[in-house]
């Protein structure tokens, strides 16, 4: 009952959804399209065809009392497609810079992308650094030399700290941390100026995408 009345309240005072343009960047085959597929369809494909140019998908995500409609631009990762990227990150409010934690070169590429975004993209863009394919190192023991892991959490976190990025390690394959990325981004996106009703009890149950950690903070996290 309460929810219903709250919905009405919200309908009348706040726009029901905020559209957020989000772009994915990162080296070829790090799993950008797979992350999107996981987020949008909760699915995974073992052999996903490379993205040619870019792909576009949308998905809604509810964080606290806000609903965010992500307009996702998934770009091609190969170097030579880089000259197309500006076409897609133009006006983007959020970006996921993805690397593969088993491929050091992809981490270097991620650095380049972060630099490029800082220089070329909108000033207030929210960027998340995402180390993907966590499933491949899951059952590795720490400090094991034969580990598939080639980029440590610390390295990722350090870059994120230096550049002011959100940071996640994910697996598109197992769905580990995938929704958290989008919820995390959403929480950092500044809300369009509007009256925000304080309805703490309404928060419960409205989170249909997160597993319960990040979304506690609502729209005004930043």
């Amino acid at each position, binding site marked *: 009952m309460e929810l219903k009345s709250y919905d009405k309240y919200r309908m009348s005072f706040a726009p029901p959804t905020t559209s957020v343009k989000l772009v994915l960047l990162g080296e070829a085959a790090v799993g950008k399209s797979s992350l999107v597929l996981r987020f949008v369809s909760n699915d995974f494909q073992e052999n996903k*065809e490379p993205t*040619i*140019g870019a792909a*576009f998908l949308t998905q809604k995500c509810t964080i606290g009392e806000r609903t965010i409609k992500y307009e996702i631009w998934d770009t091609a990762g*190969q170097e*030579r497609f880089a000259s197309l990227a500006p076409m897609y990150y133009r006006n983007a409010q959020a970006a996921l810079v993805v690397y593969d934690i088993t491929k050091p070169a992809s981490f270097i*590429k991620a650095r*380049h992308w972060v630099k490029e975004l800082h220089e070329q993209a909108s000033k207030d863009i929210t960027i998340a650094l995402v180390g993907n394919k966590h499933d491949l190192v899951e059952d590795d023991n720490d400090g094991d030399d034969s580990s598939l892991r080639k980029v440590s959490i610390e390295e990722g976190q350090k870059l994120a700290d230096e550049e002011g990025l959100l940071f996640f390690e994910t697996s598109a394959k197992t769905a580990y941390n995938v929704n958290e990325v989008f919820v995390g981004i959403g929480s950092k996106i500044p809300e369009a100026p509007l009256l925000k009703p304080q309805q703490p009890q309404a928060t419960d149950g409205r989170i249909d995408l997160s597993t319960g950690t990040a979304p506690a903070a609502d729209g005004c996290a930043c």
Partner: protein
Amino acid sequence: MAFFDALKERAVLTINQVFDKGNDSGLSKAQLFCIEHRIPDDETVIDELAAEVGVYSEYNKDAYKEKMGVSQGRIFLTQRFLIFSDAYDKRNCSFTIHLSTIKKVERVPTTDYAFALAIGTHSRIKLSFFLVGMRSESEKFAHNLKLALRANLKNIAKLQPFIQTCYSEYLLAKNKVSSEKVDEIPSGGLGLEFKFPGNAKELRDKSKMKLWFDLFKADGRNLSIVKTPMFHRLVRVGLPNRLRGEIWELCCGSMYLRLENVGLYQQLLDENKEKNSLAIEEIEKDLNRSLPEYAAYQSPEGIERLRNVLTAYSWKNPEVGYCQAMNIVTAALLIYMSEEQAFWCLHMICDRIVPGYYSKTMYGTLLDQRVFESLVQDTMPMLWEHITKYDIQLSVVSLPWFLSLFLSSMPLVYAFRILDVFFLQGPKTLFQVALAILKLNGEELLKVEDDGSFISLIKDYFHSLEQSAHPNSPNQKYRTITKFQELLVTAFKEFSIINEAVLNKHRVKHRNTIFLNISTFVKRTELRNLPKVKNIDQPTLGNIYDRYYSIVESNVTVGSGSSVMDFEGFRIFMSQICTWVNENDDNPFLRRLMNHWDSEGQKALTLSDLVVGLNKLIEPDLMEAMSNFFSLYDDKKNGKLDREHILQVSEDLLYITTPWKDAWELDRITEDAIENAIADEIVKRKAEKGEKSGDIEISSEIEIDKPKLENQQIERYLSAASTFIQRAFEYAQPEEEEALIKELAVDNKISHNAALDPSTPTYLNLPTFRMVVLADETYELLFSNTLRNSIRPEKPLDEKFDTMRNLKDMFDGLLADGRKVANKVRKRMDSAASSAINNQNQSLNHQSESSSLKSGKSKIQEEDEERDDDFGVISIDEKDKDLLLGAESHVVINTPDQATAVPKTQSSASTSTTKDGEKQPDGNLIEFET
């Protein structure tokens, strides 16, 4: 690094081609001819004539045959081909017959004026040519044909083995309508083993096969086929599975490349077996991601074939290497083609049909996307307006269509149908189909307001292609027309106006903008990824970049991915930014710099090498500048310069200082002397007039002795050079005494003699080198200031006139900078009015010379910041400038005799003491001060 290396490829050559060739397409007439007739680039037309052609065969009673009759057009002879094209419509009749397939040429008896030839080919068809025109021309053509056939004899051996690889030959031989013997099924595509996509029955594969069988009998096949309207029609309705590969390679001409280069494919694979490359890594990533739903690509065999073809191509054309989407195209080709067929076909696609699509900057893709947009704008203005209004990114849907030739967008069976036409008709097919897709969905598209709905609408359309286009039509015939058929009809009928000429017109229009965008992007990326350098700022890096590529690019071949600067280029580069380098200098110092900067040992410099090197060369910190210079000669990296090196250093210093040694540039000491002379003169005059203060007027009567000051500078540099070499050897240490010397605080007498004896190996270490340099004011200034200021990487590329190179300008600039002189005068007057005259006397006094220089020096440091900006820049009123310029006509000796031999008269010890007050004392230096 690879990130920006890969981006270095530039489209400039395409543009240059446009301008060079003076025609729209950017291709020469000869190239266009080869493209039109799908023959290899190295063919040239030997002879051509107007002709009437008739085609006859044992089977020409077939129904469609009779309609054809005789075709009029032009016949061409090249080294390996006899080519004909109908004058009215190429589709009526055309052929590209390989000379190897010609079995017989006969002269046909005719009426007195006509000249006719009959030609028999291995396909057992007979062509008759009535050559039109002067008899002598016809005779000449016949003669040339004979010569060409003779010259081609050596190629005939290739024909038999080649025939064994053609499915058409197998088909005819099996049905016993061929004189050739082909027992084995030629190796073909993966489809033979893993099934061809689609339902063969639905596709009416058998009937299509039968039609082609008839066509081969009547019109010949593969290397000697005559393309009749039936040929075009049969391609349009879709090729049968087993023949598809062969007709593709025939239509695009890759068949001729395969014939010409038998074995090259395997050779490429063998030669590069163990090698690795960026392309190989990229290919490996995508092998499992290419048409993964097709069974063969879940098997090692399919993957292996895909790997082979992509790898071989990356070696064949390293400039393209591998681009995503090529995997999908190749995977598709391999369903219908053998590896070798697919390889040559891919080669044809990348290099000729859609050049630049897969290249490192993808300029072809970007350009054609722009062209597509403007075609949409022209042909569907309403839709275009809608798309722009809602800011919909058309390219997000259309780019993959073009890049993967629809293979990643449509169900495969349909994409293959489009490919059939694409190979026959060329790249315009892509535009025609793409426009038709938008056209057919136009109404719906006008309703969508964002990218998402736009994309999903098109996606849904592609998945409904098998449905009826008119499901509700009362007419049964209409109801059976599928959306795909409708698409083809719209594409090839309604958009038949989109031909090569139209495309070229648009391409030319947008080429420059696209190129500019790419170069801006490439520049930005490359600059961002340059190593950090402290002495060069961002705008200067931009200017270095421009200059680098202005030099490098002029000798780069099309689409080259690696631009490096050779010595020639380096020399030009340096001559443009350094006063002491001449464009034609082949100087050991420049060679040394280049070798030292060349980080990859490739006898060439990358942009990053150049930037890192320049950064060192213009080091402002004196100590570091000297040590950078020293390390240029420290070839053994042991901190020691031997005799040879010392001689080389002194020679190179002489070379570097040429502009000052020859006095067409002035260094700061000279400038200072000039300013002092002027200031002194003014003060003197004021004193004579009894003025104590008041306006400082720089009048035209101030006279200075220019030749004298120049001579002083010349002397100073010569003496610096000789002093350097003398001292260098004086202080060079014998190898074994190294330890001793440090403790002895130098008893020079002993070591001198040993050092000067060439038989004793001696060396100069860094501290000693520094000391020797610092002992000479001119050379010290060289490293602290003169050298750095003579290198101007910040100069923009388009700055044509170099003021610094001109002596007259130097003087004018200096004199014109009245402010500085005025300051000097003011200081002199302020310091003490009473000592004004004294001062004058002093400056005439030999004794005080060094102190006057010293004060000049400290001034240099004071003004350091300011100097960088106004060095040589005219910054006073026009009025004053005139006055000063007037001074040139009254040059009179009135400056004090500035000691030209300063370095000689001063002991090295006293100089270093002087310096010690100002500079960071060098630990090692102190030991020598006794």
